[in-house]
């Protein structure tokens, strides 16, 4: 096996090309990565994760951008375009390169900006604006090896009626991709954004980073759909800041991947800001689904409400670890954190670790977690009505997701995700 740092090297970062400022940014990150090690499960943030078995050296970094990419029609899998419905804009990347950007005339007239940063002549401060420093080594790799970062800007006061979708497709075998999205929502603007990560049957690795900058009194609904194939690995990070009276709803929906991790850092930095999170996930076979959340309250009267609901079947594993941090200045904080996991077989393993760090007394914080099998009383009740056991189980599992399903942002798209979960429920998959 080649060495990790020979595969993901400074030379490779340099070959990605593009504007000078972006190249310099990548090179600095690649040099840092040259001396960095992958984390181990001994570190708290990676506890229980199978990070030791990753073997990133087995992947090829995505080649430099440029040249003709594949046609969009051949890239978007099956029903995905239909499921996304009416959109203000659609951006598609495939194997690390930008394939297409489409924007409706209405959205363009309203002022929506889709800005591929690869060719931007001047430095764009928004890249790294929320994440001044990467959260971990995978964020560092994203800084170093992202070929086609994208800025999505909704200027002050603009209200988009239809969602914007970014679809990152991983298609070639054994490829590693590092999609990067920056969303900036200006004062009082409103938008819905769907970020999709999808792959086929091949092995592959993706470490996407999204930065969400929600301005004063702005509203953003952000839905992250993870639909990786069974052999792919995804290590995903979303970092957000919400300014005064801003409102952010982040939703995660995950069904795929052999190992899939989602980390969300949401910082409420302005008075009266709200940052809600919800997640719906379903793991089966030998999947490992890993979620880490940080609800950071650093201003007074801020609210965050988190609801993560998942099920694991066969031999799947799930990890949820969440931290509510309330700073000394964040009086009047209201923070809630709920994690529920349904264990659908004896061989699954699920862990739920809630944590609180509170430095102000004038706050309301609550966390709750439950991990367990289907309630036998629920099963008996349905069967005693004449509902067959397999159908009863399906109804109960679907019902278990009912509350979170209604809470996911961008409902027009989230509803279609429900079908994917439904397809996984039951033994006759």
């Amino acid at each position: 096996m080649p060495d990790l740092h020979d595969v993901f090297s400074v030379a490779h970062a340099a070959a990605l090309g593009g504007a000078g400022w972006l190249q310099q940014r990548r090179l600095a990150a690649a040099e840092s990565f040259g001396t960095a090690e992958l984390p181990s499960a001994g570190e708290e943030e990676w506890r229980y994760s199978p990070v030791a078995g990753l073997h990133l050296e087995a992947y090829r970094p995505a080649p430099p951008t440029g040249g003709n990419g594949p046609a969009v029609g051949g890239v978007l899998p099956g029903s995905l375009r239909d499921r996304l419905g009416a959109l203000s804009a659609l951006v598609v990347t495939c194997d690390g390169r930008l394939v297409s950007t489409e924007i409706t005339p209405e959205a363009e007239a309203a002022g929506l900006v889709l800005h591929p940063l690869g060719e931007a002549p001047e430095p764009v401060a928004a890249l790294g604006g929320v994440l001044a420093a990467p959260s971990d080594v995978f964020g560092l790799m994203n800084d170093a090896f992202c070929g086609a970062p994208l800025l999505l800007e909704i200027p002050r006061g603009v209200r988009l009626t239809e969602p914007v979708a970014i679809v990152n497709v991983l298609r070639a075998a054994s490829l590693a991709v590092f999609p990067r999205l920056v969303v900036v929502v200006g004062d009082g603007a409103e938008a819905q954004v769907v970020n999709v990560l999808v792959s086929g049957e091949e092995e592959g690795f993706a470490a996407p980073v999204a930065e969400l900058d929600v301005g004063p009194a702005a509203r953003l609904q952000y839905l992250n759909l993870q639909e990786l194939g069974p052999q792919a690995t995804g290590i995903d990070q979303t970092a957000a800041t919400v300014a005064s009276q801003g409102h952010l709803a982040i939703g995660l929906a995950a069904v795929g991947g052999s190992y899939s991790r989602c980390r969300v850092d949401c910082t409420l930095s302005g008075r009266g800001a709200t940052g809600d999170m919800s997640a719906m996930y379903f793991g089966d076979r030998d999947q490992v689904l890993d979620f880490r959340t940080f609800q950071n309250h650093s201003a007074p009267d801020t609210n965050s409400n988190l609801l993560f609901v998942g099920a694991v079947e066969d031999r799947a594993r799930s990890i949820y670890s969440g931290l509510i941090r309330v700073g000394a200045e964040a009086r009047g904080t209201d923070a809630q954190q709920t994690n529920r996991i349904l264990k659908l077989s004896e061989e699954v393993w699920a862990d739920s670790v809630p944590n609180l760090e509170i430095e102000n007394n004038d706050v309301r914080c609550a966390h709750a977690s439950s991990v367990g099998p289907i309630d036998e009383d629920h099963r008996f009740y349905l069967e005693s009505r004449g509902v067959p056991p397999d159908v009863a189980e399906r109804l109960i599992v679907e019902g278990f997701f009912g509350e979170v399903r209604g809470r996911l942002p961008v409902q027009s798209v989230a509803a279609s995700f429900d079908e994917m979960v439904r397809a996984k429920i039951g033994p006759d998959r």
Partner: protein
Amino acid sequence: MSELIVEGLWANAAEESILQGVDLRVAAGEVHAVMGPNGCGKSTLAHVLAGRRGYTVTAGRALLDGADLLALSPFERARAGLFLAMQYPTEVPGVNLLDVLGAALAAAGRDPAADGLGAVLSAEAERLGVPAALLERAVNVDLSGGEQKRGEALQLAVLRPCIAVLDEIDSGLDVDALRAVARRIEEATAEGLGVLAITHYTRLLGVLQADRVHIMIRGRIVASGGPELADELERTGYERWDRPAPAEVAVKLGRSF
């Protein structure tokens, strides 16, 4: 015509002997009331017949139209024609009544759409005073006791079982709701439903005409008779029947000598 036959049924809950030889026969169209004080084993009888976990049958049998109920899963018992209206109907988060009944009818070989399930449900809901909004909500979740009981009666009406075990169907119901539920059950008996109604108040029998009344004490039926037995019970209470069985007396005597 359907018939439920219970013979010499003994059952334990958590190692404790609760049912101690129950014998009953409920034929199609009949209403049987099983009455007894708290803790006599009435609800255990209902649960054992429906196949709830946590009970062990140690002797006896229960047949529905010849099928050995005790060998069947709860679903198979329901499919064989048994229905249990629960004393405390279970709240099932996120699962609505329409889906439950649709799945049950489909499993029974009835086509919910062709049967006009939606229309049937609405009509039954109106008869039983169940607000239409409840049909779309999660089963029993955040409902009052009375709403839950009406919901059980509604399910019975739609599912059309052969034999219904009603476990304290009257508790939690106000007098108007109780009448509506009783009337609906009587209509079902006119169409052939056999009913085993478990209660400890004679109140139910004021509105639901029983053909036979059985008094259950300490896990066995100690007296059976017509509706007049309930009247007698109303006058005298359970005490009259609540005496140790002769065998137990003998054991006690033997011990004291």
